[in-house]
């Protein structure tokens, strides 16, 4: 509440100071109806204070994980240059996506208007949409003639729930296999080959581990499980949101996952590894192979941090019986339902996913664009060799989405517990999948 009063107060001061002497009636930026509930009180005050001025500034807040590059800064500058009437404030969230999720849910669950545009992990839109946290975008997409077929399909689908579009893809990525070019002669094509090579090459060239991946009991474990299950032809949920996880294919995938995580090729404490530990182990030259996201590439070739500059190779994730399945990752932009400036928020979101906006992020932050034409852009191709690689782009198109369900957080939590117990040997893989199926269906039936 105090924050709200403060922002209303500052808006009054700002408008008073900057716009003294201006007159006229122009666009009323956000004429919140007088009938609005108390929650909108500050909005109407802001409007009264700054409203009616053609150059009145509207401040919108954009929430996303902390950006270590200057991509976001440049993005906001470019937007503000185009829209001088809109002021964008970036609010940074933790990079741990589980923590960001919980904070966003607290803010939006409390119906707080403090955020206007939010960055969503690829697995959140269904949940947020169902919870009513987001503004459905279909009307505006239609009115402004946005062509979603120009975007990566998996990303667009991730933002679609119950037939409506709730979020637009900003950048997408998929899991990749990193390897040391100075140690690996032939890139492994299957998980079995990977494991064999990892065990053989462990210890060569100053390494300690053959393979590192994300094995901690957190979202990363769900990703790893999804990839292995997908590689052996299984899925987690069927089309109707019921469990499909207790299948022979999924069992094969889980068994392979357990075999990998209990092999001597991985660190004994693989169950404490998140992306951060994986990255450290690889760029310090301790691991032969690593499973990570595209973002590792730039850091592994940064001489100030990395000991393996120039020795980094990338390949699609190994295949199982069925195929190579990399989990689709990435982030989408959406508008908070409780935003007091949805119109300006939409302008900003449109810019985020525009060719120009995505290019800024691709070039400055090496995030993979979702606007497909950008892969032909010379500047983008220069930013990272990944973007120029047809294999990578095709791999991205065939990446497997994690289950699209409003109960994702719940199901992911269940997967983490059961898979983690199976890896620790506290239950057999068969038991783990049977438990998982029971709990997922119990949850769906409620």
């Amino acid at each position, binding site marked *: 509440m105090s924050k709200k009063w403060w922002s209303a107060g500052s808006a009054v001061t700002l408008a008073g100071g900057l716009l003294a002497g201006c007159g006229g009636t122009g666009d009323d930026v956000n004429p919140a109806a007088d009938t609005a509930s108390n929650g909108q009180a500050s909005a109407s005050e802001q409007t009264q204070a700054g409203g009616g001025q053609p150059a009145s500034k509207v401040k919108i807040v954009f929430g996303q994980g902390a950006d270590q590059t200057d991509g976001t800064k440049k993005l906001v500058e470019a937007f503000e240059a185009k829209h001088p009437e809109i002021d964008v404030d970036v609010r940074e969230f933790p990079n741990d996506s589980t923590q960001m999720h919980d904070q966003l*849910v607290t803010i939006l669950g409390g119906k707080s208007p403090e955020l206007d545009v939010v960055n969503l992990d690829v697995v959140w839109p269904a949940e947020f949409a169902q919870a009513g946290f987001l503004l459905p975008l279909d009307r505006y997409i239609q009115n402004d003639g946005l062509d979603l077929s120009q975007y990566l399909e998996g990303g667009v689908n991730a933002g679609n729930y119950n037939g409506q579009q709730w979020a637009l893809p900003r950048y997408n990525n998929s899991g990749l296999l990193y390897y040391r070019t100075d140690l690996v002669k032939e890139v492994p094509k299957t998980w079995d080959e990977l494991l064999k090579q990892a065990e053989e090459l462990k210890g060569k060239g100053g390494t300690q581990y053959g393979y590192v991946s994300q094995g901690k009991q957190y979202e990363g474990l769900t990703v790893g499980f999804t990839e292995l299950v997908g590689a052996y032809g299984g899925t987690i949920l069927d089309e109707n949101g019921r469990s499909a996880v207790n299948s022979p294919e999924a069992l094969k995938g889980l068994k392979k996952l357990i075999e990998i995580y209990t092999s001597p090729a991985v660190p004994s404490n693989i169950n404490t590894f998140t992306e951060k530990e994986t990255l450290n182990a690889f760029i310090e030259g301790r691991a032969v192979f690593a499973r990570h996201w595209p973002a590792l590439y730039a850091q592994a070739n940064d001489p100030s941090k990395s000991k393996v500059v120039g020795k980094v190779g990338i390949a699609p994730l190994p295949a199982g019986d069925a195929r190579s399945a990399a989990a689709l990752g990435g982030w989408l932009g959406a508008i908070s339902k409780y935003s007091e400036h949805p119109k300006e928020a939409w302008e900003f979101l449109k810019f985020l996913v525009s060719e120009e906006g995505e290019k800024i992020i691709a070039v400055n932050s090496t995030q993979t664009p979702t606007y497909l034409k950008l892969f032909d852009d010379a500047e983008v191709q220069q930013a990272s060799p990944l973007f120029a690689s047809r294999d990578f782009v095709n791999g991205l198109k065939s990446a497997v989405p994690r289950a699209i369900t409003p109960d994702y957080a719940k199901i992911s939590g269940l997967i983490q517990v059961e898979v983690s117990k199976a890896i620790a040997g506290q239950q057999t893989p068969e038991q783990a999948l049977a438990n998982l199926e029971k709990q997922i269906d119990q949850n769906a039936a409620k």
Partner: protein
Amino acid sequence: MRFRQRIRTANWTAYAMVLPAVLIIAVIAVWPLIRTFWISMYDLRLNDPARNELNVSYGINAEKYANSMPLLLSLLNKEAEAASGKSHTELRELADRLARADAGLREDAALQTRLDRINALLDDFKPVPADMQNIHIDKTGAERMRSELSGIGQSLQTLKEQGALSRADEAIGLAKAVQQSFTVPNFVGFGHYARLLSEPRLWEALDHTALFTAIAVALEMLAGLLIALLMNRAFRGRGLVRAAVLIPWATPTAVSAMIWHFLYDGQNGIVAKLFAEIGLIPDMGALLSTRAWALFAVVLADVWKTAPFVALLLLAGLQTISASLYEAAQMDGASRWKQFVHVTVPMLKPTFFVALLFRTLDAFRVFDLIYVLTGGGPANSTESISIYAYKTMFAELDFGAGSALSVIVFACVLLISIVYVKLLGGEVLSRRIG
């Protein structure tokens, strides 16, 4: 008669004087508790629009309805036009069925005006006020609409399988969305408790919590007592030591947990390296990656943090013991050990029990340390009851079950307090009187 009245007046005055205190307690302590208990009787899920409020009656979320129904109608009409033959008639029929249901609902004039106003607001990028969103409708109407819509959804599913729809997923999704705009009563009574108590996860969490509490509190009380006895002696720089000892306690738990996380790190952690060198742990990576060592790591960090707090409480207790008692004991020829057993221990007992009670209740609710260090892993083996409640409430947004877990935590804490006060408090009290 008069006398009695005076007594009554006096009583009332006394009550009136106490009233503010009672009110404050009611507002800050009892009310949230009752509210939590009340919520735990509902199937309340923030991520499910049909269940995101405490509903005792049927209703409709007008905004959701306005956002999905027209889309579904126009989509069905489009599909019907595009289709041919049998599926054309079927789709036509479905669209008519839907239009009839919609019209039936809109016969309610108040609902119709509300929907019109909401539509106008939405087209204008204006937020729909919360008090406009929910409209009550009667049970029969709601049930009829819900069953009608689920029937339409099923027909669409069959049509999809026949390949008659060009935008099948959209249509099915929208039918689901319309169906979900109707809210149903979600009172479940003690359903959450019955389910939670029958599942092993709750008992495992209680088990971990109890084990952690027992080990950590025992070590803290011991370490705290030793530090307090040491600090109670006169030596140079005592003030400095007393201040320094407080540093772990003064550091926010989340921060100190991050520090310990670095120290325990399997690749670069100093503590992990040290423990591995002296042979305490099998290898550097063991600390946070197996059940026993993860528990050990969490307990160590907790002891480091809270032993100073216990020490400070006990030190305060030690300083209230009059020096004359020790002098008298010395005169009687008691040794140092006898002095400790017969003077210090009995005199320190009340303070000791207060510290014990504080620490037990605190340790039982352990959250931040485990959240940062292990997140409940590996294999869920360090998940405390508070972590479980947090995950249920804030990660899964299941507020009903989460509230039930909170109430269970409260019940445990209450039980511990009662046992302590009965067993230990009584003893302390009777000794004082005797």
